[in-house]
């Protein structure tokens, strides 16, 4: 009798939890980004963001230490003579390397801003505080939000190139969907005038695809940038000319059958730390002969 009750209770708990999960999944898919579940998610993110930012800051020495270990492994051969000295100044070195990385990132960012004509008031700097743990959803959370002028669909870049777009904004944080996310698609141009759509390859952020290629023949090594236009009369959310990556592989079979080539993106998605949100719509030339969607 007791056993039957236990079994019944166990099954009921499982059924309720699975049912709730499925209801949330279905509801989340069915509603728009302004729907109640999305709003609830935004509210929880707002509540959690100070805790997450604090935790992220607390973990930064460990991250720097992990990065330091990576650097040491790479330079092992050259560092033999300096090992003793290095051990004594290890903690100073960790801090110095972190600062140097930040500095290099900011310098690159400045170069990119000058190239794209982004003024000081056209963009806000942000730091990545959360990363999605699965390879299937490439999202990160950054420490700027509505209060900093960030809005949904604004482009996000690093000094290397395009990173993604803002998909949800809270008071002090925003979610960035990276161009490596399964839902991402960016209209792009190759520097010889060919055009297409950049789409991700799930799980391998360093191997993206340029699909639906139109125009002149493309070659390995050519640079791919945002096209600045989308389908029909729709305007692209990405301004024209943001570097995306370099053509890394062109197979004649793939090109013939699928009209696609491989791209290695410029941005390093694994070690994303500092990013910039372009908050102002930049002036860009119109392109009436758009080929991509």
């Amino acid at each position: 009798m007791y056993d039957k009750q236990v079994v019944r209770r166990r099954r009921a708990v499982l059924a309720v939890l699975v049912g709730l999960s499925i209801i949330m999944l279905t509801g989340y898919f069915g509603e728009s980004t302004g729907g109640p579940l999305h709003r609830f998610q935004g509210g929880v993110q707002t509540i959690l963001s100070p805790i997450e930012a604090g935790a992220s800051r607390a973990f930064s020495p460990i991250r720097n230490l992990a990065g330091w270990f990576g650097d040491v492994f790479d330079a092992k051969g050259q560092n033999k003579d300096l090992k003793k000295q290095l051990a004594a100044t290890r903690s100073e070195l960790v801090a110095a390397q972190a600062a140097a990385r930040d500095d290099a990132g900011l310098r690159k960012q400045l170069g990119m801003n000058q190239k794209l004509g982004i003024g000081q008031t056209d963009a806000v700097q942000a730091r990545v505080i959360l990363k999605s743990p699965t390879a299937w959803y490439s999202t990160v959370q950054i420490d700027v939000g509505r209060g900093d002028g960030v809005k949904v669909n604004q482009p996000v870049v690093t000094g290397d190139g395009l990173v993604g777009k803002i998909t949800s904004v809270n008071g002090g944080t925003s979610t960035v969907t990276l161009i490596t996310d399964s839902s991402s698609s960016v209209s792009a141009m190759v520097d010889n005038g060919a055009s297409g759509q950049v789409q991700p390859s799930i799980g391998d952020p360093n191997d993206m695809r340029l699909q639906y290629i139109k125009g002149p023949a493309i070659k390995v090594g050519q640079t791919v940038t945002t096209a600045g236009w989308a389908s029909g009369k729709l305007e692209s959310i990405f301004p024209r000319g943001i570097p995306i990556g370099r053509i890394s592989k062109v197979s004649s079979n793939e090109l013939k059958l699928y009209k696609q080539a491989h791209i290695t993106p410029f941005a390093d998605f694994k070690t994303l730390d500092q990013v910039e949100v372009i908050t102002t719509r930049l002036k860009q030339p119109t392109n009436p002969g758009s080929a991509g969607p």
Partner: protein
Amino acid sequence: MTLTPGAFVRTGLLVLLAVIIQVAGIQSIPILGGTVDITPLFVAAVAIYAGSIPGAIVGFATGLLLDLAIGQTLGLSSLVLTALGYGVGRYRDMRDPSHGLLPIPVAAAATAGYYAAVAAVSFMLEIGATVSLLVLREAVITVLLNVAIALPFFALIRRILRPVLAVDPLQRMRRRQGSEPTATGPLGLRGLEVNR
């Protein structure tokens, strides 16, 4: 698990801590091309020490908080982690495992199962893009990293949960080892053993 307010608070704080540590800390520390993922480990640890119902509830709460915190499809992680918690808990209920090295196979199976289930549900929902084989490599590395930290991690969770556990599997094992005869009796016949 004894269902007291203290147990709820203790487990709730653990859920919050596990999710925050994962998304704000561990996720940004790549090791050998992968990262440790403590969410399936945590749910499996709770399930193996507390049983199927607490396992399923903690799995649901962890998944829900994870989905809310990182802004991904609501319900996906909670569905997978509920099933994971329930499955590991049922294994515990039926087989009554108490071996000291149990966390290793449990961590491997839980992490691999979690990754496979997330992949399957993601495929069913919306993935239309190309999938690289590197997903598999990353999953394998994460399984290995989780296995590497399984023993201390499970020990830590057991230590935190012990005051609210109705039955501690390891203590039960030790009690059994202490009370049960280690060999047959002087005549070599079962039933005539000398208890130590």
